[in-house]
C-alpha cells in the first residue's frame, strides 16, 4: 500500500498541475532505464478517475515508454528497469504480490496497429472474460460480448456475422474490435498508444467519438502524434520532451497559452 503522506509534497520541475482531486493512478518520481540509457526522468503525475488525458511530444520523448509503465508492459523487456512509484487506487502496481495478468485486465491497452486474434469476432471479445472467469454461463458470456461490441460502436456492423474472422474486418473496425476486447474484461483504465495512426479520417473520427463516450466510464490515457486529436478528445494534455514531463494542464490552456516555451514551440510546429 502506498502511504498517503508526501504524495502531494513531491518536488517536480514539471510546469502545471500534476495533481488530481480524484486520482486513479498516482505516479511519483518515475525513472525508466533501458540498460544504461535513461528514457524517463523523474516523472510525477496523477491520472484522475474518468478523465481523458493525452500524452504528446516528439518521437523518442518517452511518452509511449511511460504509458507502458502504467500496466507493466515494460516487464516484457529484459533490460527495462522502472524506479519510483506507480499506484492504482493507492496499491503499488510494482509490488511483487501484484498479479500482472489481473493488473492488465484492470488497465487495458489498445495498440497502434489493430491486432485482433486469428479467431472469430465473437471469440476475440469472449476470450478475456473466459480466462478471467468473468462469466458463469454461455448466456452471460453472450451478454458481455454484445455489450462490449455495443460500447465500442461495432455491434450494428457485426451482429449478423459474429462467427466471421476478426481479421476480415476493416482497419477501423478491427481497432474498435480491439477496444471491445479491452473493455470486455471490465477495466478501470484504458491505455491507448496511437490508436488511430493506421486509420483513415472517417475511422479515426469514429474511434475519437468512441473515446469521448468511453471517457464517461473509464480513465483513458492516450499517446498521440496528432495534436489536433489531443485537442479534440482530451481534457488534460501532458507534454514530454527528452524523457521529462515538461508541462501538463487543461488541454484548452496547453493549446492556447502554454506556459513553457518548449511546449509552445512543439505545438506550434517549431520543433519536432
Amino acid at each position, binding site marked *: 500500500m502506498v502511504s498517503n503522506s508526501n504524495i502531494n509534497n513531491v518536488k517536480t520541475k514539471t510546469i502545471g498541475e500534476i495533481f488530481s482531486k480524484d486520482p486513479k493512478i498516482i505516479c511519483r518520481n518515475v525513472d525508466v532505464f533501458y540498460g544504461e540509457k535513461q528514457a524517463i526522468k523523474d516523472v510525477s503525475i496523477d491520472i484522475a478517475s474518468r478523465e481523458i488525458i493525452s500524452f504528446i511530444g516528439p518521437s523518442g520523448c518517452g511518452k509511449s515508454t511511460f504509458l507502458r509503465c502504467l500496466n507493466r508492459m515494460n516487464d516484457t523487456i529484459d533490460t527495462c528497469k522502472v524506479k519510483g512509484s506507480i499506484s492504482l487506487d493507492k496499491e503499488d502496481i510494482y509490488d511483487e504480490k501484484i498479479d500482472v495478468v489481473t493488473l492488465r485486465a484492470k488497465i487495458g491497452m489498445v495498440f497502434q496497429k489493430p491486432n485482433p486474434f486469428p479467431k472469430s469476432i465473437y471469440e476475440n471479445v469472449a476470450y478475456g472474460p473466459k480466462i478471467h472467469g468473468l462469466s458463469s454461463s454461455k448466456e452471460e458470456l453472450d451478454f458481455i460480448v454484445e455489450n462490449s461490441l455495443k460500447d465500442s460502436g461495432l455491434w450494428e456492423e457485426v451482429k449478423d456475422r459474429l462467427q466471421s474472422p476478426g481479421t476480415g474486418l476493416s482497419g477501423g473496425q478491427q481497432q474498435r474490435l480491439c477496444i471491445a476486447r479491452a473493455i470486455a474484461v471490465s477495466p478501470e483504465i484504458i491505455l491507448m498508444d496511437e490508436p488511430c495512426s493506421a486509420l483513415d479520417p472517417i475511422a479515426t473520427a469514429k474511434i475519437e467519438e468512441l473515446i469521448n463516450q468511453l471517457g464517461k466510464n473509464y480513465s483513458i490515457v492516450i499517446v498521440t502524434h496528432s495534436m489536433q486529436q489531443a485537442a479534440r478528445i482530451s481534457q488534460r494534455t501532458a507534454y514530454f520532451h527528452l524523457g521529462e514531463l515538461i508541462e501538463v494542464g487543461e488541454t484548452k490552456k496547453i*493549446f*492556447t497559452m502554454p506556459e513553457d516555451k518548449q511546449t509552445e514551440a512543439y505545438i506550434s510546429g*517549431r520543433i519536432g
Partner: protein
Amino acid sequence: MVNEHILSSFDDDLHKLNKDLLKLAKLATEQFVNSIDNFSTQNIEEIDKLISKDKNLDDLDEKIQQLGFEIIALRAPQAEDLRRVISALKISTVLERIGDYSRNISNRTKALCELSSDDIPGVNIGKMGLVTQEMLEDVIIAYKDKDSDLSIKVRDTDVVIDKMNTKLYQEVLSSMSRNKKNIVSGTHILFIAKSIERVGDYVTDIAEHNYFLINGKPLSDNRPKADKTSLYGID
C-alpha cells in the same frame, strides 16, 4: 515569433498576413492624418482623393480576412500563432473602420467648405486630431515591437481624447446657441469631433488586441473614460 516553423510555408503565410496588416495600418494612418489636414486646408481636390481611396482599405481588409481564414483552415495555428491570426483579423476590421471614420470626417469637411467661414465655430479640431494621430502611430509601433507597456500607455491616453471631445462639444453648443447661423456648421463639427473620438476608441481596441496577442490574456476593463457628452444638459 519564437523561431521559425518546420513547415516554411506556414511562416510565409504568417509573414504575408503581418505584412498586409502593417500595410493597412499605414494606409489607415495616412487617411486619418490627411482627413485632419484637409479640415484645416479645405482643399476639395485632396478631400475627394481621400474619399476615393477608402476602397483600397476595404479591399485590403477583405484580403486579410480571406488569408486569415485560410491559415486557420489549412494550418490549424496554435498558441501564439492562433492569437496572432485572430488579433490580425480583429485589428484589420478596426483599421478598416478607422478608414471609414476618416472618410466621414472628409465628407463633413467637404460640406463645411461650402459654408461661409464666418458661420463656423472656432474650435481646435486639429489638436484633438494630433493626439489621436500620435496614439494611432504608437499603437502600430507597439504591435510591431510587441510592446505591452506602450499598448497600455496608448489605451490610457484615450481619456485625453474623451476630455477634448467633451470640451469641444460644450464650446460648439455654446457657439450654436449664441449664433443660429452656426447650427449647420456646428452640427458637422460635432460629428467630426465624434468621429475623431471614435477613432480614439478604435485605437484603444487595437492596444487591447496587442496586449492579448503578447500576453495571452485580456487587458482589464477598468480603463479611464471621460466622454461626458451624452450627459450634457442633465443637471
